[in-house]
């Protein structure tokens, strides 16, 4: 049987289901927006003979081109950029699926995949900051931009360093099964990661804020003592993104030092 000659249903079983087995099923955003479509791309790639690493490279180049569109202030460019990010995230899933199909999943492949993701996220955020700066010409935008760029990187560093210290995840220590029992805090973080996690649905979030800005002009807010600011949906998104990730990181560091466990977010 030649490569990729299975039907889509069979391929789904081989390439997708094993991925989410120990996470208790695929999240619905993932299933509806990404995995449904990525399967067809995987089938084409398997037929042509594209390897998993090549798929990562394709995703990287589309991501660089798409990210560059955010450097312009006009929301129309942002919509185009977000639309280009969509195939980027699709190919980000395709590489894993190809690797699972070929049984070629390797630590090196995983490393490249993760590094591409992290780099693209930083690049995208930098371009977005400059895009918004070109609209408002305010230094405050750049401050929030720096926070939005640096805090995901700190988040990664804190997580990896905690793993390097051979700490065990919180769920294992407390002895509760995450599948059956989810605390309010965990649900909140799950919701937060749906909006802010670059791997999941940042594309949808960017598309949404760019669409809002297409139709609603920037608003001037006056804060007593501090002064007045111009804000639009994209600016608010950058602020929320940076601050939310920073708070989560500080929370994680606090948890590691005081409890000695890695929290589940």
């Amino acid at each position: 049987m030649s490569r990729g000659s299975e039907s889509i249903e069979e391929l789904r079983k081989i390439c997708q289901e094993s991925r989410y087995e120990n996470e208790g099923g695929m999240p619905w955003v993932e299933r509806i927006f990404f995995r449904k479509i990525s399967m067809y791309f995987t089938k084409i790639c398997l037929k042509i003979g594209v390897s998993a690493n090549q798929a990562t490279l394709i995703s990287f180049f589309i991501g660089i081109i798409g990210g560059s569109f955010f450097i312009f202030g006009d929301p129309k460019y942002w919509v185009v950029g977000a639309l280009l990010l969509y195939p980027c995230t699709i190919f980000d899933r395709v590489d894993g699926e190809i690797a699972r199909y070929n049984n070629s999943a390797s630590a090196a492949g995983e490393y490249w995949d993760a590094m591409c993701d992290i780099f693209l996220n930083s690049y995208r955020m930098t371009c977005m900051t400059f895009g918004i700066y070109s609209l408002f010409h305010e230094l405050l935008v750049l401050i929030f931009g720096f926070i939005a760029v640096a805090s995901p990187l700190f988040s990664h560093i804190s997580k990896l360093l905690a793993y390097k210290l051979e700490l065990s995840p919180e769920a294992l220590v407390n002895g509760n099964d995450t599948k059956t029992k989810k605390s309010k805090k965990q649900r909140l973080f799950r919701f937060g990661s749906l909006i802010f996690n670059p791997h999941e649905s940042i594309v949808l979030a960017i598309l949404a804020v760019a669409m809002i800005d297409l139709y609603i002009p920037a608003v001037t807010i006056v804060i007593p003592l501090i002064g007045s600011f111009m804000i639009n949906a994209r600016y608010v998104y950058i602020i929320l993104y940076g601050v939310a990730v920073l708070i989560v990181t500080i929370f994680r560091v606090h948890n590691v030092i005081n409890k000695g466990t890695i929290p589940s977010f």
Partner: protein
Amino acid sequence: MDESIKELRKICQENRYESEGGMPWFERNFYRRFSIYFTKLFLKIGISANQATLLSLISTLFGGLFLIFANNTLYLLICALFIILSLILDRVDGEIARYNKSASKFGRFFDFMVGSSAQSYITICMTFGAYNVLHDPTIFAFGFLAVIVPLLSVVSSFFLLYREPILYGEKVLPNKSQKTNEKKIIVEYLNEPVRRVGNFLGPGALMYPILILTALDIYFAPVSLSIPIIGLFTINTRYAFLIVYGVGKLSSFVLKTYSLHEKEFGSKRQ
């Protein structure tokens, strides 16, 4: 705690450098000489090692604020005071932990997180400081580069450390006799002077060039360069440093990752 300073030095400092063959000269004369007094004070008040790390972070935050507005000697001196204080406090936490025998991996974790965030924070503050003089937004492009790339290379090296046994297996673990690769020699040759100065100054070495460059900018006016195609642009030493640091870090990061790629995939091809 009634030990004299000399006894405290023995308890808190000497065993730290045993495995490294003695305390480096710069470390002894510029940090450890003063840090022990802070340690004594903190031990008397009852400040823990983690609290000392937090104090070091707060001191860096103040130093950075003064660095943004460091357009005269007074502000620069205040800024330098805060930054050097934070570097000393960074040593104090280890000494307290050794005295209390409370050294733990969590303390090291916190110390590392604070150290790496302080470095990025100071770089950001320097970028804003340079912008205050030149008013040229292109500085921020290089500022972002100088913040992102060092953090990215830390993430990359942690990925590798965490997965090292899986990634390299038994056979291709980096071996000193294998370092004949040409690209590797170039990377090492380029990095060597920077690495030596960095090792000499100890952890937090980046703060010194930043302070020196800010001082240079106070006394020397920015220079205008005319570059074909791009046009005229004004540059001062801080801007030049950001360009060199950002681009240099990026190229060394790319070369390092590339040599890893060769090692990993080149060995599979054979």
